[in-house]
């Protein structure tokens, strides 16, 4: 289990007492990560934005149910995931898009692996990858958020890495693409927004 952040403990205590300034600090600290997590689930910016608002509203209403022995961020992620599932269930089923062909830019190999993961992995596998590598959550926490056992998450991540390795190998063996401009890919992030 991840160690509890002392600042989070203090924030949780104040929020439970109904302090709005404390909740503002909590929103400022975590809204971007909750939004990013919801983007991996929904792959739609507008939906992710709406669900982020809904997540923090729900968290405010249910703060009395928060277990202060548990870290705060996974609790927010759990609420966010439940809300996203509820939203997806209400919608009509959409046709599954074709898998996207991703051409990795040579100058940004680290970002491109995430692009490849987005295009080639299932939503659940990509979300697990995101939680473990991007948010640096331990496997047990990832399992708790996704409603799976730790072993199942471990297997899922192993398969995801294997899939990515296979695709990378395949793309490196292919001849370089033609200079024709490929159509823009619907990606959930901009390549210019990568962290240094």
């Amino acid at each position, binding site marked *: 289990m991840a160690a509890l952040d002392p600042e989070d403990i203090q924030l949780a205590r104040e929020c439970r007492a109904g302090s*709005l300034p404390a*909740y*503002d600090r909590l*929103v*400022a600290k975590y*809204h*971007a990560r909750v*939004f*990013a997590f919801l*983007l991996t689930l929904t792959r739609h*910016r507008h939906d992710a*934005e709406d669900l*982020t*608002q809904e997540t*923090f*509203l729900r968290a*405010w*209403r249910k703060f009395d149910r928060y277990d202060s022995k548990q870290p705060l961020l996974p609790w927010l992620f759990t609420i966010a995931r439940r809300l996203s599932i509820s939203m997806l269930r209400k919608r009509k089923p959409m046709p599954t898009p074709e898998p996207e062909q991703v051409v990795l830019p040579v100058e940004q*190999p*680290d*970002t491109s*692996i*995430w692009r490849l*993961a987005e295009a080639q992995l299932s939503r659940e596998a990509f979300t697990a*990858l995101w939680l473990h*590598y*991007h948010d640096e959550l331990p496997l047990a926490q990832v399992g708790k958020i996704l409603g799976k056992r730790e072993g199942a998450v471990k297997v899922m991540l*192993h398969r995801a*890495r*294997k899939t*990515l*390795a296979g695709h*990378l*190998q395949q793309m*490196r063996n292919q001849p370089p693409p033609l200079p024709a401009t490929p159509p823009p890919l619907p990606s*959930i*992030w*901009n390549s210019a*927004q*990568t*962290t240094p």
Partner: protein
Amino acid sequence: MNDSNIDQMLRRKPPTIEVPASLETKIRARVRAEVAPSPTVRWQWIVLPAAAVLMLVALLRNEGDHPTPPELVQTTTPTELPTAEVTETVEDLPLVARNPLSSEARALRRDAERTGRFLINCLPSLTQAE
């Protein structure tokens, strides 16, 4: 390209996602809207108790305007009935008169009148007999 290489690549530079600038403000606004009662609710809190008090006062005032129920025994005043009314039955009398004591008094009075009339009728015959 093996599993550990991918692991290293994923850990090395995780991408960041562009968050809408207004998102934080929107979240705060929604939470504040949840906490603060809406103007409608505030207006109701002012008006409804006052209306309830006014209704209560109006009800109490109406209750005070009602006359007290008539006390049958007290309101029945013994009246001298004319001779023609001797024949009427108790059922024909108004409700306030259906007091067992008053009807008894009326019967006694009727008997007394009959007796008196009988005596008056008898007196001339006595004088005539003399």
